[in-house]
């Protein structure tokens, strides 16, 4: 397990993406799945900054990556108030262009991109998001 801590800022997203890309490649995921992990982690971190911390520079994002026997596990920790994924509405897809709304797409994408997505309240306070991608 490798753990790195990043400031909760949008300019951290590229560094976080490079970190998970490196670990996903070392776990022998194919390039499509490496991208899927990067996209899911990017959406998760964007949500942490925007919706958990309500802005940049409020708190850190702790990112841990673990190469599993059959894939990769990414754990993201924040120190924000508890997140309730069930309170986020499903995005309305296949709607006319003028009615498309952005809310909820990040979470939807994370679930589509990864094999397992789990939110928990961290024992240290904050949220713990665990995502797993299996090797195809």
């Amino acid at each position, binding site marked *: 397990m490798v753990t790195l801590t990043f400031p909760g800022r949008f300019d951290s997203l590229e560094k976080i993406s490079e970190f998970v890309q490196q670990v996903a490649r070392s776990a022998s995921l194919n390039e499509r799945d490496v991208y*899927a992990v990067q996209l899911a982690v990017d959406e998760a971190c964007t949500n942490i900054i925007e919706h958990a911390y309500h802005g940049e520079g409020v708190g850190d994002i702790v990112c841990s990556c673990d190469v599993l026997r059959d894939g990769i596990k990414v754990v993201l920790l924040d120190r924000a108030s508890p997140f309730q994924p069930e309170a986020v509405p499903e995005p309305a897809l296949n709607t006319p262009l003028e009615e498309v709304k*952005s809310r909820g797409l990040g979470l939807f994408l994370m679930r589509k991109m990864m094999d397992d997505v789990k939110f928990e309240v961290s024992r240290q306070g904050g949220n713990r998001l665990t995502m797993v991608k299996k090797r195809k």
Partner: protein
Amino acid sequence: MNFSTTSYKRCEVLKTAGRIDGATAPELEVALKAIMDAGKHNIVFDMEEVNFLSSAGWWVLIGTQKECKKLGRGEVVLARVGKTICDSLKLVGMEEYFKIFDDLTTAVGSF
């Protein structure tokens, strides 16, 4: 993030490279708005060198598409979208809102 805009007879081609995420999507928004502010609403977004596009970037493109299509003024089309990005666009049904072209000439010629 660097942007280049090339004017053609019937459309503008906007090109950039690298990642479009929560950090850089606002820059894309500014670049697209500058084109629209100049009264141009037929836009080709050349994504040949874009290697990452998160939902923050898609919402900028969707917002621009809404503006361009308003009153039938024009349209945003996408050209040379990388396969991994295209797959994720399709997964969430985003490709319904854009014509996607494999090559730039066809994209420009579509206007």
